[in-house]
C-alpha cells in the first residue's frame, strides 16, 4: 500500500515539475506610420494613388506576395516600397505579365535593406495593360521556436499629374 502511495506521489511530483509551455516572444519591426510618412515623401510630386501595407511573419521558407496593378496607358506611375519595418532585406520584382508567363518582361528588379526604400517609375511612352509586383521575403535566419519575427513593407503608388 505504502509503495503505491509513494509511486503516486512520485508521479504527481514528476508531473508537477513539467514546466508550463511558454508563449513565443513576438518581435515586430513594423513602423507603419513612419513608413507611410517616409513613403509619401518619396512619392511626391506624383499624386498619391494607393497604399498597401504587407504584414510579414518571417518563416523558415521564402515567401512571395503578388500584387496586380491595372494600368491606364499614357499615365506615368511611381512605386515606392518602404522596407524600414522589415527584420530582413526584401527583393522586389516588377513584371509586365505573371512571372510564370514565358513572355514576362522584368521591368525592375532590386533589393532593399531594412532601412531603405525602393522607388521605381514607369517610363514615359512605356505602355502596359498591367504590372505585376512581386515582394520576395527571404527565409528567417533565426531558428528559434520561442521567437516570432514580424515586420511590414509599405507599398505606395502614385501617378503623374499633367
Amino acid at each position, binding site marked *: *500500500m505504502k509503495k*503505491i*502511495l509513494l509511486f*503516486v*506521489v512520485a508521479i*504527481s511530483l514528476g*508531473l*508537477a515539475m513539467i514546466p*508550463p*509551455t511558454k*508563449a*513565443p516572444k513576438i518581435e515586430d519591426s513594423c513602423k507603419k506610420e513612419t513608413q507611410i510618412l517616409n513613403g509619401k515623401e518619396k512619392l511626391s510630386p506624383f*499624386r*498619391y*494613388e*494607393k*497604399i*498597401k*501595407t*504587407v*504584414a*510579414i*511573419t518571417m*518563416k523558415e521558407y521564402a*515567401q*512571395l*506576395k*503578388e*500584387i*496586380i*496593378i*491595372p494600368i*491606364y*496607358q499614357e*499615365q506615368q506611375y511611381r512605386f515606392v516600397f518602404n522596407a524600414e519595418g522589415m527584420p530582413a532585406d526584401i527583393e522586389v520584382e516588377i513584371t509586365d505579365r505573371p512571372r510564370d508567363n514565358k513572355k514576362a518582361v522584368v521591368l525592375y528588379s532590386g533589393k532593399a535593406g531594412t532601412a531603405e526604400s525602393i522607388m521605381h517609375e514607369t517610363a514615359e511612352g512605356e505602355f502596359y*495593360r498591367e504590372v505585376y509586383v512581386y515582394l520576395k521575403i527571404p527565409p528567417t535566419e533565426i531558428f528559434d521556436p520561442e521567437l*516570432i519575427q514580424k515586420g511590414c513593407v509599405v507599398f505606395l*503608388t502614385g*501617378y503623374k*499629374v*499633367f
Partner: protein
Amino acid sequence: MRKTVLAAITLTLVLASCGESGSNNTDSMGVEETQSAANQEQVDAEMATEVLYPSPLQIISVFQRSGLQYNEGLILPSGAEAEGGSRINNTILLGAFSTDLAYCILNDQSNRSLEYLHAINTTADNVGIRGFFNAEEMFARAEKNISNRDSILEVAANVQEQLDTYIEDSHDYESAALLFLGAWLESYHIAYESFSKDNEQVVLHRMMEHLRMLNYVFEPFKNNTDNLDLKELLTSLENLKNSYASLLEKEAIEVTDLMPVSAEIEKIRSSIIASQN
C-alpha cells in the same frame, strides 16, 4: 483503510490539479495553436494575390484629360444615399459617389464637392464603416479650404486612404472590388454621356481601355457563389465582359459600336440607384 482513502483523495486531487493544469496547458496550447494558425492564415491571406484597383480620382483624371466638359446633370443626385439598400449596392454606390466627388473637384465645383463628401460619409455608415471616417475633421478641413482645389484634392485623397486602410485591416477584398465597380460604372457613364465630336476618338480610346478594367473586378469573387444578389450582379458583369470581348473582334471600332455595351452598363447603374428607393 483511512490511508487508502487519503491516498485516493491525494491522487484524485493531484490528477485533477494536473488535469486542470493540463487543461490549462491544453487551452493555452489551444490558444497558441489557434493564434499560430490565425497568424498563418493572416500571413497567407496577406500573401494571396491582390489587385490594387485604380482610384476614382485617377480614373476621372484620365477621362478629364480627354477634354470632357462638366455636366452637372450626369452625376448621381447627392440625396441618393439616404434611402437604404443592400450592403453590396451601398458599397458600389460609395465608389460611385467617390467618383462624383473627384469629378466635382477636378471641375472646380466646390459646393457640390462638399455635398458628395457628405454623401460618402452617409454611405460609408450604410455600408457599416460607421465612425470610420473622421467626418468632423474632414468637413472642417474641406469647408475651410473650399476655394483651394489642392486642399480639397488632399481631403479626397485622405478619404481614399481611409477606405484603403479599412479594406486592408478587414481583408475585405470583395468590397475593394465593389468600390472599384462603382467608380468604374460612374466614370464610364460620365464619359459616354459627355463626349463631343471634337474629342470622340480620344474618349473612345479611353473607354475601350476602361472597359478592359472590368476584368479585374472578378478576382476576389472566384470562390464566392453563395450570395444571390452577388451572383446576379456577377452574371450581369459576365455578360458585359462577353459583349466587350465581341467588340474586340471588330477590325475598327466606332463610337456607335459601344451602344449595346453602354446600354448594359446603364442598366446595371440604374438598377443600383433604383434599389436605394
